[in-house]
């Protein structure tokens, strides 16, 4: 059996879905559970093509609810387990996702956003931001990485497993249909050859030894008898989440110091935002660029400073303000004004962003 899918590193030409599958293998995931839905299908296809070669496993379940719960089961048994879904599949999976929050199960979920509401389009959107960051009943104790490039998809899929297993919060890689299907060159690598230590999973259940003699009973709960008990659990989880958040938060800020307006975007849209910023800077406009990489936890303090300094933001997204809600909540109290480009389910080009800024500056 082949030991590693990638020795050292090399460039390859890949679709985004394939990148995720390769990254999961390179990141030493043990098993994928899944149910097909466009536009994430090739994550499953390529995982299953590689699985026999590298001693990995796969289970196709009857629906996304089951794919989510079996992923949690895999983790409880001590496997690095993940699943991938999109759109209505993400909706169905919210119950297992929120159970992962409550039971602190380090499952990894890859979301390739498609158009909504409901079945809508199989193509593209950024309309799963609210659901991926705060979906399910509960308080959104999750980590969400929003990727912009194939290199991001590779890097953050590997990182997601480490984040999940280190902090024991369910961790999400939030891509979209464009990233899923687009093809571009990407450097794929063996993480260990780059000095990235991959955290080894440990079982939650079925540990060795006799209960009461060698070890305590493992009692994992997602249900409580009284309001007060739940309150204690949620508040202690919130405290822990807030305390690790600064270590987890990631963002990319460029040319913000002297900017009179800052383009704020995430995911694939930030590629257009970055091009627009560079073009406008080239033409002498004082424009900055801010991209949260983590949408949960959100780089709120960092964006607040940028907003106070520039006094104007342009929030751009392929949804009708889901990302903007996160922005507004996190900079509450800032005197900065916010312009927007909202295009639910449709891509945003750098030309549109340039035109909007030229028209308003």
């Amino acid at each position, binding site marked *: 059996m082949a030991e590693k*899918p990638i020795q050292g590193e090399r*460039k*390859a*030409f*890949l*679709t985004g879905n*394939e990148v995720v599958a*390769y990254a999961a293998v390179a990141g030493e995931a043990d098993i994928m559970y899944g149910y097909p839905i*466009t*536009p994430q299908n*090739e994550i499953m296809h*390529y995982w299953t*093509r590689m699985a026999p070669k590298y001693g990995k496993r796969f289970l196709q379940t009857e629906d996304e609810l089951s794919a989510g719960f079996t992923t949690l089961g895999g983790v409880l048994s001590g496997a690095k387990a993940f699943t991938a879904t999109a759109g209505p599949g993400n909706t169905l999976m919210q119950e297992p996702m929120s159970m992962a929050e409550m039971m602190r199960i380090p499952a990894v979920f890859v979301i390739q956003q498609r158009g909504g509401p409901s*079945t809508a389009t*199989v*193509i593209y959107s950024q309309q799963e931001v609210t659901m991926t960051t705060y979906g399910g009943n509960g308080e959104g104790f999750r980590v969400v990485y929003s990727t912009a490039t194939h290199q991001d998809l590779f890097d953050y899929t590997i990182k997601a497993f480490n984040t999940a297993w280190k902090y024991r919060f369910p961790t999400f890689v939030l891509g979209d249909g*464009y990233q899923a*299907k*687009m*093809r*571009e*060159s990407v450097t*794929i690598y063996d993480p260990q050859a780059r000095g990235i230590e991959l955290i080894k999973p440990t079982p939650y259940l079925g540990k060795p030894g006799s209960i009461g003699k060698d070890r305590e009973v493992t009692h994992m709960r997602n249900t409580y008898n009284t309001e007060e008990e739940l309150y204690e659990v949620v508040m202690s989880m919130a405290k822990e989440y807030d305390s690790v958040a600064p270590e987890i938060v990631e963002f990319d800020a460029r040319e913000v110091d002297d900017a009179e307006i800052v383009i704020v975007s995430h995911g694939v849209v930030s590629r257009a935002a970055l091009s627009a910023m560079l073009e406008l800077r080239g033409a002498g406009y004082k424009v900055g660029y801010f991209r949260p990489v983590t949408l949960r936890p959100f780089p709120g303090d960092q964006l607040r400073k940028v907003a106070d300094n520039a006094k104007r933001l342009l929030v751009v997204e392929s949804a009708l303000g889901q990302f903007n809600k996160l922005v507004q909540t996190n900079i509450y109290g800032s005197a900065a004004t916010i312009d927007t480009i909202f295009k639910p389910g449709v891509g945003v080009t750098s030309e549109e962003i340039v035109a909007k800024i030229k028209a308003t500056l």
Partner: protein
Amino acid sequence: MQRLVEAYIGEYASGKSENAINRAIELARQGRKVTLVDLDLVEPFYTLRPIQDELRQLGIDVVAWETRNTMGLGEAGNILKPEMKWVLRREGDIIMDIGYGVEGAKTLNLVEGALTDPDLKVFAVINVSRPMTFSIPDIIEHVQGMGLVQGLLNNTHLGDDTTADVIEAGAEVVAEAARLLNLPVVATSVDERLAAHFPGGVDRLGHPVRILRRFMPKAFW
């Protein structure tokens, strides 16, 4: 005039459509009557559908669905248009753009007369930068799995990061795989940006070079 019937098959995102389009344009420029047919029933992204009008303006007859006339693409599967099934009854050259992998190659079974057409040539498009076809054993396994293949086409590239060396290195791998498979290498494809690196119209191993103009990046949906 000898009628040309060519089918381009191969691994996902190996460059089948781009090579089929450019071949059709090349033949049309020679004054030949050419029909380019979208027979990708596997994957609804990156097909001829979004760019068919542009291709028609280049003098090619294109047989493809209009996206607005389809229902549930990517959700409920794709179906063959009657014109696709009977495309080999047309006059002139026929270039077939087939969906990926083994399932894609089976689409030829649905085209009336394809398997008995004496002019049919089935070419497998290989990009050695694609992980499933990184190595010679991978390529051999992949090509043998697809059934009828009469030649390999070296389409090794890395998108915007392609260099002439990447293409030439790919040619060597494809040539060796072809030798072991007892198949010819029909051509090496080269992005037009790099055409100047292949002045004799051949690669280092002497395979004819086909210059590619990129249409597919705008053919997402």
